[in-house]
């Protein structure tokens, strides 16, 4: 409790410093197409109306974002028009195509390249805060062509969730918490039976990728110039998942008649799952009676840790007529106090290292999710990857009867085609 108050006080200080002043970062421009160009902010910092477009995960997020916008508007003497998009990516595209993009919007890391390539994004990030305040992986996720574009809003990591009631029933103790794949397999075996499957994993690359990372594999090479989907590490990882599926100790949600793994977990059909921190809210609201705990993802055979991270940033369009006010708004939204408020309201992890650590300290349940941040892997952001991934994902549910090597070869081949000019 004390820690939180101190944090809030620090945040309030920052906020006062930011709120009234607006932004004075304007420097001469050399045109927005060159990667290292300086950013020119436009418009006044006061008395303007901004538009904020976002896609909400539920009433909690809607309320928190609306409240934040109201608070900044009152503080800075501006107005904010908040648009909660029901079909976010489509509405955002339409706003841009129509020439009236929102002044501030959510932008997923997978979308960054699409927008940055078109010159539609204002690379304002370094005006708001130094990169060292944020987790390096998140800064990297919003860096394209050597330019850091936008401030990471927050993030979510995958972790291993365990139904503690079923855990005890199977005679397992805290010493059995899976630290590596062999323990995971042994535990899943013990947990399977009586209509319960040991582990339920979402049938998508966005879950299976964690196993790739744990086995030392990756989606792309370090320089992000080539795909590495069919590397021997990835093939072995997928073979491991397949062997568990064949034994019946790992299931995909469709096999358990569930929309997502969290549902199978919440209904007690699966004893373990590998979802992100959004499951905290889902368990609280939909399955409050289930007792569960989260642990970091188990390491691979070589002891390598791995997980996946999903994140959004605060995007500002390069064509905004009020980018000065927009940047000051983002400064407020990304302030430590506001990040903490968002985290508490709807369970996302703060992108600022200091805030995330303090938040994890107060909420032990969150710690397992934050723990993966230093080594977490981001999804592929290459333009056109959506159909490639969908082609892979649609086959995952039948993994038990497919050849992992062929699956990954296909994925690699389709992904490589995207990089060809």
């Amino acid at each position, binding site marked *: 409790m004390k820690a939180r108050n101190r944090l809030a006080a620090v945040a309030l200080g920052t906020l006062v410093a930011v709120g009234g002043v607006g932004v004075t970062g304007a420097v001469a421009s050399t045109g927005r197409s060159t990667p290292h160009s300086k950013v020119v902010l436009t418009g006044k910092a006061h008395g303007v109306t901004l538009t904020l477009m976002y896609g909400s995960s539920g009433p909690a997020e809607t309320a928190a974002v609306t409240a934040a916008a109201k608070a900044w508007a009152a503080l800075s003497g501006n107005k904010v028009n908040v648009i909660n998009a029901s079909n976010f*990516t*489509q509405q*955002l*595209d339409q706003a*841009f*195509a129509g*020439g009236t993009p929102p002044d501030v919007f959510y932008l997923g890391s997978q979308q960054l390249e*699409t*927008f940055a*390539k*078109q*010159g*539609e994004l204002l690379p304002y990030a370094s005006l708001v805060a130094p990169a060292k305040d944020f987790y390096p992986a998140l800064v990297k996720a919003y860096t394209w062509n050597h330019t850091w574009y936008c401030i990471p809003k927050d993030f979510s990591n995958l972790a291993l969730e365990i139904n503690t009631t079923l855990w005890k029933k199977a005679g397992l103790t805290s010493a059995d918490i899976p630290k590596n794949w062999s323990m995971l397999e042994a535990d899943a075996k013990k947990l399977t039976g009586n209509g319960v499957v040991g582990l339920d994993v979402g049938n998508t690359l966005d879950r299976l990728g964690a196993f790739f990372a744990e086995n030392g594999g990756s989606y792309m090479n370090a320089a992000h110039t080539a795909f590495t989907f069919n590397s021997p590490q990835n093939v072995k990882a997928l073979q491991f998942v397949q062997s568990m599926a064949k034994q019946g100790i790992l299931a995909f949600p*469709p*096999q*358990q*008649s569930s929309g997502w793994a969290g549902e199978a977990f919440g209904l007690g059909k699966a004893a373990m799952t590998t979802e992100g921190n959004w499951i905290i809210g889902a368990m609280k609201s939909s399955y409050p009676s289930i007792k569960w705990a989260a642990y970091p993802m188990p390491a691979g055979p070589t002891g390598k840790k791995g997980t996946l991270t999903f994140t959004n940033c605060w995007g500002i369009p390069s064509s905004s007529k009020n980018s000065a006010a927009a940047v000051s708004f983002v400064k407020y939204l990304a302030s430590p106090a506001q990040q903490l408020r968002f985290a508490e309201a709807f369970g996302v992890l703060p992108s600022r290292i200091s805030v995330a650590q303090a938040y994890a300290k107060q909420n032990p349940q969150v710690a397992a999710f934050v723990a993966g941040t230093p080594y977490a892997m981001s999804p592929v952001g290459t*333009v*056109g*990857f*959506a*159909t*490639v991934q*969908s*082609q892979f994902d*649609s*086959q995952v*549910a*039948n993994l038990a009867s497919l050849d992992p090597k062929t699956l990954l070869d296909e994925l690699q081949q*389709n992904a490589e*085609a995207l990089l060809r000019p």
Partner: protein
Amino acid sequence: MGLARTLDEAMAPRGVSAPWSPRRIWRHRGSSTRGQNAAGWLFVAPALGILVMFLVIPIGLALYVSFTNWSGITSPFGRTVQGVGLANYRALLTEPGLNRQLFGTDIRNNLYFVLFTVPLQTLLALWLAVVVNNRFLRGRGFFRLAFYFPSVTSSVAITTVFIFLFQGSGAVNKILSVFGIRGPNWLYDTRGIFTVILSMIGVHSAPGWAGHTFLGISIWQWIAGPSFGMCVLIILLTWTTSGTFMLLFIAALQGVSLDVEEASEIDGATPWQRFRHVTVPMLRPAIVLVLTLGLISTWQLFDQVTLVGPYNQTTWTPAYLSYYVSFQNNEFGQGAAIAFLLFALIVILTLIQRRFVKEDLTR
């Protein structure tokens, strides 16, 4: 256009020349024709304006987009948009790659959907119409309403109900298990039903000749048949659309004069003969209309796929692929090219169908 003409032809009694045709009236009042003309244009102007605004311009724009690399997040005439010639079409038809493979797969999916749904919905609609048109049936109004009901219900709501019914442990599989049948996990099952039948009789893998590919997918995949996921959509659409077409058949049946039926009865025709040789020929224009409408609408299957598609790519249709490629991949040029190829396909198939299924045997 084609649709309107078909409707017109099917509904108008053949061989009757209208003495009150507007053209004739105009000819009599030659002096005021020009004024009438202007007034006519004035009256249709709002409708015409709407058509140009929401139909002609978007179609023209989409055609333009199909020759560009527009990403969908800038103005389509912006500086980053480049003309790419026929590249978007080539990627779908000739160049090996994921886009062609997906396009080929989706054409196959939709082809099976059409091959099953159109005959099924036409037969079911005809049968329902004949049943509820029976003069001696009690509560005809109730049955008509009941059969028509699925057609007026929201397609999204009905699809959602079907998703629940056809889950792995859903109601359908529960019923099947009563008869000792272990039902497939419908929505997720990507196996074609012909492949499953072939494997039952011992053919487990493709024979050599089936390895050749067309549009990026092998002959073996072309002949695999609809997947179990697609079968759910076939059942769904047959059920929901047969009500609409039943109405068309009822309207046509009421045009069949009682005298003819009675005459055939007196001549000693059995009920089946009467149906086959008297009723069906008289319904020919309506049958052609239903087949044409069915053929066009089934190639445009979209709503249901947006709900079921994320589970299973074998339920995707070209219409859904066009949407997905545009809005998920930000490749609007590619998406527009798919839409125009689909348009060409529908036009060609409709022309073929109209050539081979004549409305009137005497023509």
